[in-house]
């Protein structure tokens, strides 16, 4: 099957069950070219399973995951369409980085010159002839990225690429991914930490327990205001707010409440309920809070 060249990934109604565990439940989202899309969710939320389903490594129980309109295994020259950096993508410990990349290059029909180019790009030229068994996690990530780029793909899929990278490495990766997307290509990058990819991504797909809980721009997520409330009786206020239909309320460890509602409504409700307010602060654009709320985590 011929890919349509769009650089688009389309996941539709994807579900995957491993025995009794439902890793992914009816997940649907689209990844567009020209942007970095963050794939965010807590550990165990089905991110890796979804990425592996996109790459044809995991067979969906139902639904589909298409790359440029084609299931990955049916792509004729997959490395020219998608490059993947997977969390557990290893290299034989006795094999050098250069040999590993040469073997990968042979499989995708890339010349050995491309291997040297990619070694230089990811900064592994000096370590290229050392057995990869002695590599740090960060070096493994760089090597995996070099392998993913060998075929000069239109789409890049990365599973938790920040793991093991030092701050300089993360900054370098951020610039690289943004440049890749600026050239009109597609980046899908997963993470369990918004802080790690918040500065890199243009769009977000947030998953929790195998389902999509948010999909859209960063601004859309920022647009939902949160009010932090310090008051005499948080439980009573929460009850009063709930009675008015405000249900997104988090009890913070500090004793404060984080309420997804307008500050005026919260103040009026507190007054009506007879709960003394000591502090009322509108927090806009706290992505981390929103992420945690969406994924049901404690703040």
């Amino acid at each position, binding site marked *: 099957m011929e890919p349509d060249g769009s650089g688009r990934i389309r996941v539709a109604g994807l579900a995957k069950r*491993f025995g009794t565990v439902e890793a992914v439940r009816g997940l649907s989202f689209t990844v567009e070219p020209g942007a970095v899309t963050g794939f965010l969710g807590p550990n165990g939320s089905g991110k*890796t*399973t979804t990425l*592996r389903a996109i*790459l*044809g*490594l*995991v*067979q969906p129980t139902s639904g589909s995951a298409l790359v440029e309109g084609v299931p990955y*295994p049916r792509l004729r020259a*997959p*490395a020219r369409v*998608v490059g*993947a950096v*997977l969390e*557990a*993508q*290893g*290299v*034989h*410990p*006795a*094999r*050098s980085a250069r*040999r590993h990349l*040469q*073997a*990968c*290059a*042979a*499989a*995708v*029909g890339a010349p050995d010159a491309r291997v040297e180019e990619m070694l230089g790009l990811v900064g592994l030229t000096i370590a290229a002839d050392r057995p990869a068994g002695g590599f740090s996690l960060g070096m493994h990530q760089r090597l*995996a990225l070099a*392998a993913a780029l060998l*075929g000069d793909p239109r789409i890049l899929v990365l599973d938790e690429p920040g793991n093991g990278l030092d701050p300089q490495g993360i900054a370098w990766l951020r610039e690289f991914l943004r440049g890749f997307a600026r050239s009109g290509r597609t980046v899908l990058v997963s993470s369990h930490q918004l802080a790690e990819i918040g500065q890199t991504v243009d769009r977000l797909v947030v998953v929790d327990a195998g389902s999509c809980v948010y999909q859209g721009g960063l601004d859309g997520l920022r647009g939902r205001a949160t009010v932090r409330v310090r008051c005499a009786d948080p439980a009573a206020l929460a009850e009063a707010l709930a009675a008015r239909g405000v249900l997104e309320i988090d009890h913070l460890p500090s004793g404060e409440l984080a309420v997804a509602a307008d500050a005026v409504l919260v103040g009026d409700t507190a007054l009506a309920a007879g709960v003394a307010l000591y502090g009322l602060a509108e927090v806009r654009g706290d992505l981390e809070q929103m992420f945690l709320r969406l994924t049901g985590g404690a703040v």
Partner: protein
Amino acid sequence: MTLILPTAGVLRSETLKALSVKTWWALAIPVAALALTVNVFGGLFGAAAGGLVDDGVPGILLASLAYALSLAGVFAAVQGVVLASAEFRHRTVSGTYLLGGRGPVLLAKGAVAAGIGAGYALVTAVVGLLAGLLGQGAARLPSVWPLLGVIGSGIAVCALWAVLGVALGTVVVHQAGAVVALLLWVLVIENLVSLVLRSGADSDRAPGVLARITSYLPANAGDIALYDLPARALGGRFGPSIVETLAGVAGPPPGWGALLVLLVWTGAAVALAHVVGERRDIT
């Protein structure tokens, strides 16, 4: 489900990968050592044959060579198992499947392993012949055609066992488990099964169906293919009964037939590995 042939690139990739780690030559060392030991004393083999043949018959070297090639086949199979299961052990399989595709990778690995297995057979032939000539004396040099026949069968048997190993290492991805399973089958289970199947046979009458099955088990079939020519050189028209003793079988088919039997086993194993490998979730 169709098998997609690997591209030249995938074949080259798998070759580079196999040759960039030590396994292939590390296993070639015991292969050479065994070929040396087995052939340097033709009498050793003669003793194993248990008085079936007289000393000084030219077929002895041919037979000890066949025995060494049979042992080389086990190493060829282990090499194949390691080649395939290493991808899972070192978690490199995701990258390999992404770049090469599952079916093509299986076939390319089979081809590479077959090449290395054939190499083991050649090493055995060269070392075994030299050792045999030194240890047993030049007077017993076998004639050319039976010698080439045994070496050719050895190459085929070792190559097939290597492919069988790749198939096994793809189905049973736990490396140690796969190697142990292979050795258990070849060295213990198949021999026990053969013993049981032949237990009711009466040596004065033609072997029954059960006893004949022994010739169609994979390791036995490989041995029959190897011992066919030496047995004829040793025993003439009594060749088949010598094969029966050497391979521990009853009513053996001719050597080429036994090779076909091993080929069928190999094909079945590859087909199973293809079906299992294609559906497996790589998590």
